[in-house]
């Protein structure tokens, strides 16, 4: 069998239609993960009694197990919980009405949350303590100081790691095919199964992922430049 170059292009065009699904999964999981991560990081830094232990256990568990197991646990476990709760409360909600992509959203958000929590935490710890003290001394409350002074600096510091997390989630979204969501990876399988040219189809898929990854990196580099404008050192 020879490599069919024209089919790579055909597959590439077919795969383009699946890019929005992949990007949607990535965007949702990164956004929700960021919120979870932020809460987790703040809770752990302020050592809030019970919550900080829960956050630590959550981060340890998620980071110690593969993303695939999270997806499978949510996929099989969540319907049971949802049905039990809805039966107990007498709601008419059935777990079967959750769309497949919903499982991917929930599970990947949980995964992203743990990784992002570590990224944000290290960013927060990198901010000089004097910044917070200065904010207090001019009369800001803690939430104000966190929002206006600490977080912007922490996010600037952790931007490269955040970008890595985004890329990690982009690559992780290929797992969605196990719960029958048609993302780029699943689409490549579908396209290839019609004529058995798997290699060509996956070459096209790899090219798309490579392109997307490079794009994310370029965008991060631009953002980093913009965000670090204040930090040029020297006088004036």
């Amino acid at each position: 069998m020879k490599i069919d170059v024209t089919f790579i292009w055909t597959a590439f065009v077919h795969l383009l239609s699946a890019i929005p699904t992949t990007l949607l999964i990535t965007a949702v999981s990164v956004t929700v993960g960021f919120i979870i991560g932020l809460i987790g990081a703040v809770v752990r830094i302020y050592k809030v009694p019970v919550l900080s232990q829960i956050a630590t256990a959550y981060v340890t568990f998620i980071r110690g197990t593969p993303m695939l197991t999270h997806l499978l646990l949510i996929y099989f476990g969540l319907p049971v919980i949802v049905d039990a709760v809805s039966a107990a409360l007498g709601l008419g909600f059935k777990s079967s009405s959750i769309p497949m992509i919903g499982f991917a959203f929930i599970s990947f958000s949980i995964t992203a949350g743990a990784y992002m929590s570590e990224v944000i935490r290290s960013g927060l710890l990198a901010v000089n303590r004097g910044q917070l003290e200065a904010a207090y001394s001019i009369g800001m409350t803690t939430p104000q100081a966190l929002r206006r002074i600490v977080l912007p600096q922490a996010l600037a510091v952790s931007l490269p790691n955040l970008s890595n997390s985004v890329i990690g989630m982009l690559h992780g979204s290929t797992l969605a095919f196990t719960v029958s969501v048609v993302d780029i990876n699943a689409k490549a399988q579908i396209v290839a199964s019609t004529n058995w040219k798997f290699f060509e189809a996956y070459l096209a898929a790899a090219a798309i992922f490579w392109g997307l990854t490079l794009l994310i990196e370029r965008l991060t580099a631009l953002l980093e430049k913009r965000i670090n404008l204040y930090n040029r050192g020297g006088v004036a």
Partner: protein
Amino acid sequence: MGAPFDFSFVFSFFPKLASTLGITLLIVAGSLVVGMIVGFLIALPRLYRIPALRTFSQVYVSFFRGTPILIQLFLFYYGLPEILKLIGIDMSKAPVLVFVILTYGLHTGAFMSEMIRASVMAVDRGQLEAAYAVGMTGRQAFTRIVLPQALAIAVPVFSNLVIALLKDTSLAFTLGVMEMTGKAQTLGSVTQHFIESYIALALIYLVVSFTLEKVLKAMEVRLMRHELPDTPARTGFRIHKKGSYRRVVAGIGTEKGGAEL
């Protein structure tokens, strides 16, 4: 979905899953060996700035870091036999495990090369010059001075890579390898106790990655002895304290993700 939840199944699944732990660890160990060799080969052209090979290294690293491991698995599983057929090697009889180890090895190799490059570059140039000054040859200076220091810097990154690799092996089941995740799926569908089987699976992964982390941490402490607080016997010889390696390590971007072309 499936039978009602029964926690006792979690325990009964443990030994069954643990019996396939060997395959998972075999994939990890095999790919680490392949990855080390590939990593060295890929890192050298960039360390010594060899013109054309250096570009190849860059593209190689960028490709493996810029595409998902799942896509790479399928790509090599379907593509490698055809490419090797061109040079007259027949792979059609080779077991799937070979492809899996090879793919994970090539994948890890990209990250390893970044790790090797960054840790060798992180060793102070003055160390090499000092070694030459006391009359060591190039090889002596490398094995006695640069390598031990580079090793110490690389260990934390290496530890991250090993654990990431362990977690990535869960994808091997997509090609039909009966490692832990594949086994968990089979157990689930046989007994209809999916949740219990995946809980057991997650717990085993957790224990293994936790153990690996602790072992590698101990190794790091051992290799970093020269950075530890000075014992009275050694303080006399110290002129000044170097910055902690931790800071150097924090700057090395060999986490998962990022293509950096």
